[in-house]
Protein backbone atom coordinates (compact mmCIF):
# COMPACT_ATOMS: atom_id res chain seq x y z
CA UNK A 1 0.00 0.00 0.00
CA UNK A 2 1.35 3.41 -0.90
CA UNK A 3 1.84 5.86 1.88
CA UNK A 4 -0.46 8.85 1.94
CA UNK A 5 1.56 11.83 3.18
CA UNK A 6 -1.63 13.61 4.24
CA UNK A 7 -2.84 10.73 6.41
CA UNK A 8 -3.44 11.52 10.07
CA UNK A 9 -3.93 7.91 11.09
CA UNK A 10 -2.59 5.01 9.09
CA UNK A 11 -2.57 1.27 9.69
CA UNK A 12 0.13 -0.53 7.73
CA UNK A 13 -0.15 -4.30 7.56
CA UNK A 14 -1.30 -4.43 11.16
CA UNK A 15 -1.71 -7.91 12.59
CA UNK A 16 -2.85 -8.44 16.14
CA UNK A 17 -4.15 -11.22 18.37
CA UNK A 18 -4.74 -11.62 22.09
CA UNK A 19 -3.04 -14.98 22.46
CA UNK A 20 -0.21 -16.55 20.48
CA UNK A 21 -2.04 -19.86 20.68
CA UNK A 22 -5.03 -18.56 18.80
CA UNK A 23 -5.32 -17.10 15.31
CA UNK A 24 -4.96 -13.31 15.18
CA UNK A 25 -8.08 -11.16 15.57
CA UNK A 26 -6.90 -8.71 12.93
CA UNK A 27 -4.73 -9.68 10.00
CA UNK A 28 -2.93 -7.32 7.66
CA UNK A 29 -5.19 -4.35 8.19
CA UNK A 30 -4.40 -1.43 5.90
CA UNK A 31 -6.03 1.95 5.69
CA UNK A 32 -5.14 5.58 5.97
CA UNK A 33 -7.43 8.30 7.19
CA UNK A 34 -7.02 11.95 6.29
CA UNK A 35 -7.41 14.75 8.78
CA UNK A 36 -10.85 16.32 9.16
CA UNK A 37 -12.79 13.20 8.23
CA UNK A 38 -15.08 10.85 10.12
CA UNK A 39 -14.33 7.16 9.88
CA UNK A 40 -16.93 4.59 10.90
CA UNK A 41 -15.72 1.10 11.77
CA UNK A 42 -18.62 -1.20 10.99
CA UNK A 43 -19.03 -4.91 11.31
CA UNK A 44 -20.71 -7.71 13.24
CA UNK A 45 -19.95 -8.48 16.88
CA UNK A 46 -16.60 -10.11 17.34
CA UNK A 47 -15.10 -8.76 14.11
CA UNK A 48 -12.46 -6.82 16.07
CA UNK A 49 -13.83 -3.26 15.98
CA UNK A 50 -13.00 -2.38 19.58
CA UNK A 51 -9.62 -4.10 19.23
CA UNK A 52 -8.86 -1.89 16.28
CA UNK A 53 -9.78 1.18 18.30
CA UNK A 54 -7.45 0.09 21.11
CA UNK A 55 -4.64 -0.34 18.57
CA UNK A 56 -5.28 3.16 17.24
CA UNK A 57 -5.03 4.44 20.82
CA UNK A 58 -1.72 2.66 21.38
CA UNK A 59 -3.18 0.72 24.31
CA UNK A 60 -2.60 -2.49 22.36
CA UNK A 61 0.52 -2.97 20.27
CA UNK A 62 0.41 -4.76 16.91
CA UNK A 63 2.18 -8.10 16.52
CA UNK A 64 3.29 -6.95 13.13
CA UNK A 65 2.95 -3.79 11.12
CA UNK A 66 2.74 -0.20 12.21
CA UNK A 67 0.20 2.29 13.41
CA UNK A 68 1.21 5.74 12.22
CA UNK A 69 -0.05 9.01 13.65
CA UNK A 70 0.75 11.98 11.42
CA UNK A 71 3.38 9.88 9.68
CA UNK A 72 5.17 8.86 12.88
CA UNK A 73 4.92 5.50 14.60
CA UNK A 74 2.46 5.75 17.47
CA UNK A 75 4.78 3.91 19.85
CA UNK A 76 7.36 6.70 19.41
CA UNK A 77 5.05 9.29 20.97
CA UNK A 78 5.61 10.28 24.56
CA UNK A 79 2.68 9.61 26.86
CA UNK A 80 1.49 13.15 27.48
CA UNK A 81 2.13 14.05 23.86
CA UNK A 82 -0.03 11.13 22.74
CA UNK A 83 -2.70 12.34 25.18
CA UNK A 84 -2.74 15.70 23.41
CA UNK A 85 -3.15 14.03 20.00
CA UNK A 86 -5.62 11.28 20.82
CA UNK A 87 -8.68 11.14 23.01
CA UNK A 88 -10.85 8.14 23.80
CA UNK A 89 -14.59 8.14 24.42
CA UNK A 90 -15.16 4.72 25.98
CA UNK A 91 -18.48 2.98 25.78
CA UNK A 92 -19.07 3.27 29.49
CA UNK A 93 -17.15 3.94 32.63
CA UNK A 94 -17.86 3.18 36.24
CA UNK A 95 -17.00 5.31 39.25
CA UNK A 96 -18.32 4.64 42.75
CA UNK A 97 -17.34 8.13 43.90
CA UNK A 98 -19.42 11.29 43.77
CA UNK A 99 -17.38 13.33 41.31
CA UNK A 100 -19.35 16.16 39.77
CA UNK A 101 -19.60 16.08 36.00
CA UNK A 102 -17.34 19.12 35.84
CA UNK A 103 -14.64 17.52 38.01
CA UNK A 104 -14.83 14.45 35.81
CA UNK A 105 -14.53 16.40 32.56
CA UNK A 106 -11.65 18.35 34.06
CA UNK A 107 -9.60 15.14 34.03
CA UNK A 108 -9.42 15.56 30.25
CA UNK A 109 -6.91 18.33 30.94
CA UNK A 110 -4.38 15.86 32.38
CA UNK A 111 -2.16 15.56 29.26
CA UNK A 112 -1.90 19.36 29.04
CA UNK A 113 -0.60 19.73 32.59
CA UNK A 114 3.00 19.28 33.70
CA UNK A 115 3.67 16.00 35.54
CA UNK A 116 1.81 16.14 38.88
CA UNK A 117 0.34 19.50 37.86
CA UNK A 118 -3.00 20.75 39.12
CA UNK A 119 -5.59 22.29 36.80
CA UNK A 120 -6.02 26.05 37.02
CA UNK A 121 -8.87 28.46 36.20
CA UNK A 122 -8.16 28.24 32.46
CA UNK A 123 -8.61 24.46 32.62
CA UNK A 124 -11.91 24.84 34.46
CA UNK A 125 -13.01 27.20 31.74
CA UNK A 126 -12.11 24.72 29.01
CA UNK A 127 -13.93 21.96 30.89
CA UNK A 128 -17.03 24.15 31.30
CA UNK A 129 -16.91 24.99 27.61
CA UNK A 130 -16.62 21.30 26.73
CA UNK A 131 -19.72 20.52 28.82
CA UNK A 132 -21.57 23.29 27.01
CA UNK A 133 -20.47 21.96 23.63
CA UNK A 134 -21.76 18.51 24.58
CA UNK A 135 -25.02 20.22 25.49
CA UNK A 136 -24.91 19.30 29.18
CA UNK A 137 -23.68 22.52 30.85
CA UNK A 138 -26.68 22.31 33.17
CA UNK A 139 -25.34 19.05 34.62
CA UNK A 140 -21.96 20.53 35.61
CA UNK A 141 -22.53 20.12 39.34
CA UNK A 142 -24.45 16.87 39.29
CA UNK A 143 -22.68 13.84 40.78
CA UNK A 144 -21.68 11.39 38.07
CA UNK A 145 -23.29 8.29 39.67
CA UNK A 146 -26.66 10.09 39.47
CA UNK A 147 -26.45 10.73 35.72
CA UNK A 148 -28.42 8.58 33.29
CA UNK A 149 -26.60 6.37 30.80
CA UNK A 150 -27.11 8.86 28.00
CA UNK A 151 -25.99 11.83 30.10
CA UNK A 152 -22.90 9.92 31.11
CA UNK A 153 -22.10 9.16 27.49
CA UNK A 154 -22.29 12.87 26.64
CA UNK A 155 -20.11 13.63 29.66
CA UNK A 156 -17.44 11.20 28.42
CA UNK A 157 -17.62 13.00 25.08
CA UNK A 158 -17.21 16.33 26.91
CA UNK A 159 -14.09 15.00 28.63
CA UNK A 160 -12.62 14.10 25.25
CA UNK A 161 -13.50 17.58 23.94
CA UNK A 162 -11.76 19.14 26.95
CA UNK A 163 -8.70 17.11 26.01
CA UNK A 164 -8.53 19.12 22.75
CA UNK A 165 -7.18 16.23 20.67
CA UNK A 166 -6.69 16.15 16.93
CA UNK A 167 -8.10 12.65 16.66
CA UNK A 168 -11.00 11.38 18.71
CA UNK A 169 -11.71 7.67 19.09
CA UNK A 170 -15.30 6.81 20.00
CA UNK A 171 -16.38 3.32 21.01
CA UNK A 172 -20.07 2.83 20.18
CA UNK A 173 -20.90 6.45 21.05
CA UNK A 174 -24.62 6.06 20.36
CA UNK A 175 -25.08 2.81 22.28
CA UNK A 176 -26.82 4.31 25.33
CA UNK A 177 -28.58 7.20 23.62
CA UNK A 178 -32.25 7.75 22.88
CA UNK A 179 -33.32 9.21 19.56
CA UNK A 180 -33.08 12.82 20.69
CA UNK A 181 -29.60 12.42 22.16
CA UNK A 182 -28.51 10.41 19.14
CA UNK A 183 -29.45 13.31 16.87
CA UNK A 184 -27.62 15.63 19.24
CA UNK A 185 -24.49 13.48 19.18
CA UNK A 186 -24.50 13.41 15.37
CA UNK A 187 -24.80 17.21 15.44
CA UNK A 188 -21.84 17.50 17.83
CA UNK A 189 -19.72 15.17 15.73
CA UNK A 190 -20.42 17.20 12.59
CA UNK A 191 -19.57 20.32 14.49
CA UNK A 192 -16.26 18.86 15.68
CA UNK A 193 -15.41 17.81 12.14
CA UNK A 194 -16.21 21.31 10.89
CA UNK A 195 -13.58 22.58 13.31
CA UNK A 196 -10.97 20.28 11.84
CA UNK A 197 -11.18 17.35 14.25
CA UNK A 198 -10.78 13.82 12.92
CA UNK A 199 -13.07 11.18 14.33
CA UNK A 200 -12.95 7.40 14.37
CA UNK A 201 -15.97 5.58 15.75
CA UNK A 202 -17.14 2.04 15.97
CA UNK A 203 -20.84 1.84 15.34
CA UNK A 204 -23.60 -0.69 15.01
CA UNK A 205 -26.22 1.70 13.74
CA UNK A 206 -26.26 2.17 9.97
CA UNK A 207 -28.35 5.36 10.21
CA UNK A 208 -25.67 7.01 12.36
CA UNK A 209 -22.97 5.90 9.94
CA UNK A 210 -24.93 7.22 6.97
CA UNK A 211 -25.57 10.51 8.74
CA UNK A 212 -22.04 11.40 9.73
CA UNK A 213 -19.32 9.16 8.27
CA UNK A 214 -17.07 10.16 5.36
CA UNK A 215 -15.14 6.90 5.24
CA UNK A 216 -16.03 3.39 6.27
CA UNK A 217 -14.00 0.40 7.37
CA UNK A 218 -16.14 -2.69 6.98
CA UNK A 219 -14.86 -5.52 9.11
CA UNK A 220 -15.61 -9.14 8.69
CA UNK A 221 -14.27 -11.99 10.77
CA UNK A 222 -11.66 -13.96 8.83
CA UNK A 223 -11.43 -11.57 5.87
CA UNK A 224 -9.44 -8.44 5.23
CA UNK A 225 -11.55 -5.35 5.99
CA UNK A 226 -12.85 -3.13 3.23
CA UNK A 227 -11.87 0.52 3.46
CA UNK A 228 -13.30 3.26 1.31
CA UNK A 229 -15.41 6.36 1.03
CA UNK A 230 -18.92 5.97 2.38
CA UNK A 231 -20.60 5.77 -1.02
CA UNK A 232 -18.05 3.25 -2.30
CA UNK A 233 -17.76 0.91 0.66
CA UNK A 234 -21.14 1.16 2.34
CA UNK A 235 -23.17 -0.52 -0.38
CA UNK A 236 -25.95 -3.09 -0.49
CA UNK A 237 -23.47 -5.69 -1.66
CA UNK A 238 -20.83 -5.19 1.00
CA UNK A 239 -23.34 -4.82 3.84
CA UNK A 240 -25.26 -7.92 2.81
CA UNK A 241 -22.04 -9.88 2.74
CA UNK A 242 -20.70 -8.64 6.06
CA UNK A 243 -23.92 -9.14 8.01
CA UNK A 244 -25.09 -12.26 6.11
CA UNK A 245 -28.44 -10.61 5.51
CA UNK A 246 -30.10 -9.28 2.40
CA UNK A 247 -29.73 -5.54 2.96
CA UNK A 248 -31.08 -2.70 0.86
CA UNK A 249 -30.33 1.00 0.93
CA UNK A 250 -33.39 3.15 0.28
CA UNK A 251 -33.79 6.87 0.13
CA UNK A 252 -36.40 8.49 2.38
CA UNK A 253 -36.85 12.27 2.21
CA UNK A 254 -33.43 12.58 0.62
CA UNK A 255 -31.70 10.53 3.32
CA UNK A 256 -30.39 7.04 2.83
CA UNK A 257 -31.71 4.37 5.15
CA UNK A 258 -30.79 0.73 5.65
CA UNK A 259 -33.56 -1.79 5.28
CA UNK A 260 -33.24 -5.52 5.84
CA UNK A 261 -35.59 -8.39 5.44
Amino acid at each position, binding site marked *: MTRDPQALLAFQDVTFGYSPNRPPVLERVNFSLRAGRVLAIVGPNGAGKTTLLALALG*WLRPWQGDVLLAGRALRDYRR*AERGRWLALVPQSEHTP*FDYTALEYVLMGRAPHLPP*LGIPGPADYEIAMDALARAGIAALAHRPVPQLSGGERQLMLLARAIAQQPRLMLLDEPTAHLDLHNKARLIQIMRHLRAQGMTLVMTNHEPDVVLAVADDVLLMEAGRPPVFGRLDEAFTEDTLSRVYHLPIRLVEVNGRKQVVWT
Partner: protein
Amino acid sequence: MSELTLRAVIARNARRQRLIGLLAAGLVALLALSILLGRYPAPGLMPWSRLQEDELAARLVLNLRIPRLLAALLLGMTLSAAGMVFQLLFSNPLVEPGFLAVSPGAAFGAAFAIVLLGGGALMTQASAAAFALAGLGFSYLMARRLRFGGWVLRLVLAGIAVSALFSAGVGLLKYIADPLTQLPEITFWLLGSLASITWPKLLSVLPAVVLGLGIVLLFRWRLNVLSLNEETAFSLGAAPNRERLVLIVAAVVPTAALISISGMVSWIGLIVPHITRRLFDADTRFGLPATMLIGGIFTVLCDNAARVLLAGEIPLGILTSLLGALIFLGLMTAQQFRSQP
Protein backbone atom coordinates in the same frame (compact mmCIF):
# COMPACT_ATOMS: atom_id res chain seq x y z
CA MET B 1 -24.80 30.27 32.59
CA SER B 2 -21.27 29.00 32.02
CA GLU B 3 -19.79 32.19 33.46
CA LEU B 4 -21.92 31.79 36.57
CA THR B 5 -21.01 28.14 37.05
CA LEU B 6 -17.34 28.90 36.71
CA ARG B 7 -17.55 31.53 39.40
CA ALA B 8 -19.45 29.08 41.62
CA VAL B 9 -16.67 26.53 41.16
CA ILE B 10 -13.96 29.02 42.03
CA ALA B 11 -15.91 30.09 45.11
CA ARG B 12 -16.36 26.46 46.15
CA ASN B 13 -12.66 25.71 45.75
CA ALA B 14 -11.85 28.78 47.87
CA ARG B 15 -14.33 27.54 50.48
CA ARG B 16 -12.65 24.13 50.52
CA GLN B 17 -9.27 25.75 50.93
CA ARG B 18 -10.58 27.78 53.88
CA LEU B 19 -12.04 24.65 55.45
CA ILE B 20 -8.65 22.95 55.13
CA GLY B 21 -7.05 25.96 56.82
CA LEU B 22 -9.62 25.73 59.59
CA LEU B 23 -8.94 22.02 60.09
CA ALA B 24 -5.20 22.71 60.25
CA ALA B 25 -5.74 25.42 62.87
CA GLY B 26 -7.99 23.07 64.83
CA LEU B 27 -5.37 20.35 64.71
CA VAL B 28 -2.65 22.70 66.00
CA ALA B 29 -4.89 23.85 68.85
CA LEU B 30 -5.73 20.23 69.67
CA LEU B 31 -2.03 19.31 69.76
CA ALA B 32 -1.26 22.25 72.08
CA LEU B 33 -4.04 21.25 74.44
CA SER B 34 -3.11 17.58 74.31
CA ILE B 35 0.40 18.36 75.54
CA LEU B 36 -1.13 19.60 78.78
CA LEU B 37 -3.69 16.82 78.98
CA GLY B 38 -2.94 13.71 80.99
CA ARG B 39 -3.14 12.03 84.39
CA TYR B 40 -0.21 13.86 85.96
CA PRO B 41 -0.36 15.54 88.39
CA ALA B 42 -4.11 14.85 88.32
CA PRO B 43 -6.42 13.66 85.53
CA GLY B 44 -7.14 16.61 83.25
CA LEU B 45 -5.24 19.63 81.99
CA MET B 46 -2.15 20.75 83.86
CA PRO B 47 -1.56 24.48 84.09
CA TRP B 48 1.13 25.86 81.78
CA SER B 49 3.09 27.31 84.71
CA ARG B 50 3.61 23.82 86.10
CA LEU B 51 5.90 23.00 83.17
CA GLN B 52 8.36 25.62 84.36
CA GLU B 53 8.18 24.74 88.06
CA ASP B 54 7.97 20.98 88.01
CA GLU B 55 10.93 19.25 86.42
CA LEU B 56 9.17 15.90 86.36
CA ALA B 57 6.24 17.42 84.49
CA ALA B 58 8.56 19.00 81.93
CA ARG B 59 10.41 15.75 81.37
CA LEU B 60 7.17 13.81 81.13
CA VAL B 61 5.85 16.16 78.48
CA LEU B 62 9.06 16.28 76.50
CA ASN B 63 9.99 12.59 76.59
CA LEU B 64 6.64 10.86 76.69
CA ARG B 65 3.71 13.03 75.69
CA ILE B 66 5.20 14.89 72.72
CA PRO B 67 6.62 11.85 70.88
CA ARG B 68 3.42 9.96 71.56
CA LEU B 69 1.30 12.84 70.25
CA LEU B 70 3.40 13.12 67.14
CA ALA B 71 3.14 9.36 66.60
CA ALA B 72 -0.66 9.55 66.92
CA LEU B 73 -0.72 12.45 64.50
CA LEU B 74 1.44 10.69 61.90
CA LEU B 75 -0.43 7.42 62.35
CA GLY B 76 -3.77 9.14 61.71
CA MET B 77 -2.48 11.12 58.74
CA THR B 78 -0.82 8.12 57.15
CA LEU B 79 -3.60 5.58 57.61
CA SER B 80 -6.20 8.04 56.32
CA ALA B 81 -4.16 9.13 53.33
CA ALA B 82 -3.23 5.54 52.49
CA GLY B 83 -6.87 4.52 52.89
CA MET B 84 -8.00 7.21 50.47
CA VAL B 85 -5.30 6.29 47.96
CA PHE B 86 -6.29 2.62 48.09
CA GLN B 87 -10.01 3.31 47.85
CA LEU B 88 -9.47 5.45 44.76
CA LEU B 89 -6.96 3.16 43.05
CA PHE B 90 -9.09 0.09 43.61
CA SER B 91 -12.36 1.92 42.86
CA ASN B 92 -13.69 0.43 46.04
CA PRO B 93 -14.80 2.56 48.99
CA LEU B 94 -14.44 -0.39 51.35
CA VAL B 95 -10.73 -1.16 51.18
CA GLU B 96 -8.29 0.04 53.80
CA PRO B 97 -4.52 0.45 53.76
CA GLY B 98 -3.73 -2.91 55.33
CA PHE B 99 -5.63 -5.04 52.85
CA LEU B 100 -2.74 -5.86 50.52
CA ALA B 101 -1.45 -8.22 53.21
CA VAL B 102 0.27 -5.31 54.96
CA SER B 103 -1.53 -5.50 58.31
CA PRO B 104 -1.56 -9.31 58.51
CA GLY B 105 2.10 -9.27 57.48
CA ALA B 106 2.96 -6.86 60.27
CA ALA B 107 0.97 -8.94 62.76
CA PHE B 108 2.80 -12.06 61.70
CA GLY B 109 6.16 -10.29 61.92
CA ALA B 110 5.45 -9.06 65.44
CA ALA B 111 4.20 -12.44 66.64
CA PHE B 112 7.19 -14.12 65.00
CA ALA B 113 9.60 -11.83 66.83
CA ILE B 114 7.80 -12.26 70.16
CA VAL B 115 7.67 -16.06 70.01
CA LEU B 116 10.86 -16.98 68.19
CA LEU B 117 13.25 -14.03 68.35
CA GLY B 118 13.09 -13.11 72.00
CA GLY B 119 10.59 -10.29 71.66
CA GLY B 120 12.82 -7.27 72.18
CA ALA B 121 11.10 -3.98 71.30
CA LEU B 122 13.45 -3.13 68.47
CA MET B 123 13.37 -6.68 67.10
CA THR B 124 9.57 -6.73 67.17
CA GLN B 125 9.41 -3.41 65.35
CA ALA B 126 11.92 -4.43 62.69
CA SER B 127 10.26 -7.79 62.15
CA ALA B 128 6.78 -6.24 61.89
CA ALA B 129 7.95 -3.67 59.36
CA ALA B 130 9.86 -6.26 57.34
CA PHE B 131 6.94 -8.67 57.15
CA ALA B 132 4.46 -5.88 56.35
CA LEU B 133 6.55 -4.95 53.31
CA ALA B 134 7.06 -8.64 52.52
CA GLY B 135 3.27 -8.99 52.53
CA LEU B 136 2.96 -6.20 49.97
CA GLY B 137 5.82 -7.56 47.86
CA PHE B 138 4.47 -11.09 47.93
CA SER B 139 0.97 -9.87 46.98
CA TYR B 140 2.46 -7.90 44.13
CA LEU B 141 4.50 -10.82 42.80
CA MET B 142 1.52 -13.16 43.05
CA ALA B 143 -0.67 -10.60 41.28
CA ARG B 144 1.81 -10.48 38.43
CA ARG B 145 1.73 -14.24 38.09
CA LEU B 146 -2.04 -14.60 38.23
CA ARG B 147 -3.49 -15.21 34.80
CA PHE B 148 -6.92 -13.93 35.53
CA GLY B 149 -8.77 -10.65 35.38
CA GLY B 150 -7.45 -7.10 35.26
CA TRP B 151 -4.55 -5.71 37.23
CA VAL B 152 -6.74 -4.35 40.06
CA LEU B 153 -8.68 -7.58 40.51
CA ARG B 154 -5.45 -9.60 40.49
CA LEU B 155 -3.93 -7.42 43.22
CA VAL B 156 -7.06 -7.75 45.36
CA LEU B 157 -7.18 -11.52 44.95
CA ALA B 158 -3.48 -11.91 45.68
CA GLY B 159 -3.80 -9.60 48.70
CA ILE B 160 -6.66 -11.66 50.13
CA ALA B 161 -4.81 -14.95 49.67
CA VAL B 162 -1.51 -13.69 51.11
CA SER B 163 -3.38 -12.10 54.04
CA ALA B 164 -4.95 -15.44 54.80
CA LEU B 165 -1.52 -17.11 54.77
CA PHE B 166 -0.17 -14.63 57.29
CA SER B 167 -3.28 -14.87 59.46
CA ALA B 168 -2.86 -18.62 59.55
CA GLY B 169 0.76 -18.05 60.55
CA VAL B 170 -0.31 -15.72 63.38
CA GLY B 171 -2.76 -18.40 64.57
CA LEU B 172 -0.01 -20.98 64.58
CA LEU B 173 2.37 -18.71 66.49
CA LYS B 174 -0.32 -17.92 69.06
CA TYR B 175 -0.92 -21.65 69.48
CA ILE B 176 2.73 -22.40 70.23
CA ALA B 177 3.34 -19.21 72.24
CA ASP B 178 3.90 -19.41 75.98
CA PRO B 179 0.42 -18.64 77.34
CA LEU B 180 1.73 -16.77 80.37
CA THR B 181 4.30 -14.45 78.81
CA GLN B 182 4.25 -14.45 75.02
CA LEU B 183 0.53 -14.82 74.31
CA PRO B 184 -0.50 -11.69 76.25
CA GLU B 185 2.23 -9.75 74.49
CA ILE B 186 0.98 -10.82 71.06
CA THR B 187 -2.57 -10.00 72.07
CA PHE B 188 -1.60 -6.51 73.23
CA TRP B 189 0.35 -5.91 70.06
CA LEU B 190 -2.68 -6.91 68.01
CA LEU B 191 -4.86 -4.48 69.96
CA GLY B 192 -2.60 -1.59 69.08
CA SER B 193 -1.21 1.07 71.40
CA LEU B 194 1.06 4.08 71.39
CA ALA B 195 1.90 3.73 75.11
CA SER B 196 5.49 2.70 74.52
CA ILE B 197 6.44 5.34 71.94
CA THR B 198 9.79 6.98 72.56
CA TRP B 199 11.78 9.53 70.56
CA PRO B 200 14.11 6.89 69.06
CA LYS B 201 11.14 4.79 67.92
CA LEU B 202 9.43 7.81 66.40
CA LEU B 203 12.59 9.03 64.70
CA SER B 204 13.26 5.58 63.28
CA VAL B 205 10.06 5.74 61.22
CA LEU B 206 10.01 9.48 60.50
CA PRO B 207 11.99 9.51 57.22
CA ALA B 208 9.82 6.83 55.59
CA VAL B 209 6.65 8.57 56.75
CA VAL B 210 7.64 12.06 55.60
CA LEU B 211 8.84 10.80 52.23
CA GLY B 212 5.78 8.63 51.63
CA LEU B 213 3.26 11.30 52.63
CA GLY B 214 5.13 13.88 50.56
CA ILE B 215 4.88 11.76 47.43
CA VAL B 216 1.20 11.02 48.08
CA LEU B 217 0.50 14.76 48.46
CA LEU B 218 2.22 15.52 45.17
CA PHE B 219 -0.20 13.09 43.49
CA ARG B 220 -3.24 14.76 45.07
CA TRP B 221 -4.93 15.71 41.80
CA ARG B 222 -3.33 13.04 39.65
CA LEU B 223 -4.92 10.41 41.89
CA ASN B 224 -8.31 11.31 40.32
CA VAL B 225 -7.00 10.34 36.89
CA LEU B 226 -5.40 7.15 38.19
CA SER B 227 -8.72 6.08 39.70
CA LEU B 228 -10.24 5.78 36.21
CA ASN B 229 -10.09 2.47 34.43
CA GLU B 230 -6.71 1.59 32.96
CA GLU B 231 -7.42 2.23 29.31
CA THR B 232 -8.99 5.61 30.05
CA ALA B 233 -6.11 6.69 32.30
CA PHE B 234 -3.76 5.61 29.51
CA SER B 235 -5.73 7.68 26.97
CA LEU B 236 -5.23 10.69 29.26
CA GLY B 237 -1.47 10.31 28.97
CA ALA B 238 -0.87 8.41 32.20
CA ALA B 239 1.15 5.24 32.73
CA PRO B 240 -1.53 3.70 34.94
CA ASN B 241 0.30 0.61 36.15
CA ARG B 242 3.59 2.31 36.88
CA GLU B 243 2.10 5.38 38.52
CA ARG B 244 -0.28 3.30 40.61
CA LEU B 245 2.61 1.17 41.81
CA VAL B 246 4.56 4.29 42.85
CA LEU B 247 1.52 5.54 44.78
CA ILE B 248 0.84 2.20 46.43
CA VAL B 249 4.44 1.92 47.62
CA ALA B 250 4.42 5.56 48.76
CA ALA B 251 1.27 4.83 50.80
CA VAL B 252 2.21 1.41 52.15
CA VAL B 253 5.78 2.04 53.30
CA PRO B 254 4.82 4.69 55.88
CA THR B 255 1.82 2.56 56.90
CA ALA B 256 4.08 -0.43 57.53
CA ALA B 257 6.57 1.75 59.41
CA LEU B 258 3.91 3.17 61.71
CA ILE B 259 2.10 -0.13 62.30
CA SER B 260 5.46 -1.55 63.36
CA ILE B 261 5.56 0.86 66.31
CA SER B 262 1.83 1.08 67.07
CA GLY B 263 0.53 -2.45 66.49
CA MET B 264 -2.81 -3.02 64.80
CA VAL B 265 -4.87 0.15 64.73
CA SER B 266 -7.78 -0.51 62.45
CA TRP B 267 -10.72 1.42 61.01
CA ILE B 268 -8.96 4.79 60.71
CA GLY B 269 -7.97 4.13 57.10
CA LEU B 270 -11.49 3.05 56.26
CA ILE B 271 -13.67 5.58 58.04
CA VAL B 272 -11.71 8.83 57.80
CA PRO B 273 -11.73 8.95 53.96
CA HIS B 274 -15.51 8.45 54.11
CA ILE B 275 -15.93 11.37 56.51
CA THR B 276 -13.68 13.45 54.26
CA ARG B 277 -15.69 12.68 51.15
CA ARG B 278 -18.85 13.80 52.92
CA LEU B 279 -17.23 17.17 53.59
CA PHE B 280 -15.08 17.64 50.49
CA ASP B 281 -16.70 15.44 47.81
CA ALA B 282 -14.68 13.04 45.70
CA ASP B 283 -11.99 15.29 44.18
CA THR B 284 -8.78 14.23 45.93
CA ARG B 285 -7.07 17.53 45.19
CA PHE B 286 -8.67 18.81 48.39
CA GLY B 287 -9.68 15.43 49.74
CA LEU B 288 -6.15 14.12 50.33
CA PRO B 289 -4.82 17.03 52.43
CA ALA B 290 -8.18 17.18 54.23
CA THR B 291 -8.23 13.47 55.02
CA MET B 292 -4.73 13.72 56.50
CA LEU B 293 -5.86 16.52 58.82
CA ILE B 294 -9.10 14.79 59.81
CA GLY B 295 -7.23 11.53 60.35
CA GLY B 296 -4.71 13.34 62.55
CA ILE B 297 -7.45 14.94 64.62
CA PHE B 298 -9.40 11.68 64.95
CA THR B 299 -6.39 9.66 66.04
CA VAL B 300 -5.05 12.26 68.48
CA LEU B 301 -8.50 12.44 70.08
CA CYS B 302 -8.70 8.65 70.32
CA ASP B 303 -5.21 8.39 71.78
CA ASN B 304 -5.96 11.15 74.30
CA ALA B 305 -8.94 9.12 75.44
CA ALA B 306 -6.80 5.97 75.48
CA ARG B 307 -4.28 7.46 77.89
CA VAL B 308 -6.49 9.71 80.04
CA LEU B 309 -9.91 8.09 80.49
CA LEU B 310 -8.84 5.25 82.78
CA ALA B 311 -5.98 4.90 85.23
CA GLY B 312 -4.81 1.98 83.11
CA GLU B 313 -4.14 2.39 79.41
CA ILE B 314 -6.96 1.52 76.99
CA PRO B 315 -5.53 -0.09 73.82
CA LEU B 316 -5.86 2.47 71.02
CA GLY B 317 -7.02 -0.11 68.49
CA ILE B 318 -10.09 -0.86 70.60
CA LEU B 319 -11.10 2.82 70.66
CA THR B 320 -10.54 3.43 66.95
CA SER B 321 -12.51 0.29 66.07
CA LEU B 322 -15.33 1.18 68.41
CA LEU B 323 -15.62 4.81 67.31
CA GLY B 324 -14.85 4.07 63.67
CA ALA B 325 -17.49 1.38 63.40
CA LEU B 326 -20.08 3.57 65.18
CA ILE B 327 -19.39 6.49 62.86
CA PHE B 328 -19.49 4.16 59.89
CA LEU B 329 -22.91 2.87 60.90
CA GLY B 330 -24.05 6.44 61.44
CA LEU B 331 -22.87 7.55 58.00
CA MET B 332 -24.41 4.56 56.29
CA THR B 333 -27.83 4.95 57.90
CA ALA B 334 -27.99 8.77 57.94
CA GLN B 335 -29.91 10.67 55.27
CA GLN B 336 -27.65 11.08 52.27
CA PHE B 337 -26.43 14.64 52.23
CA ARG B 338 -24.12 16.49 49.91
CA SER B 339 -22.52 19.88 50.11
CA GLN B 340 -24.09 21.96 47.39
CA PRO B 341 -21.89 24.08 45.12
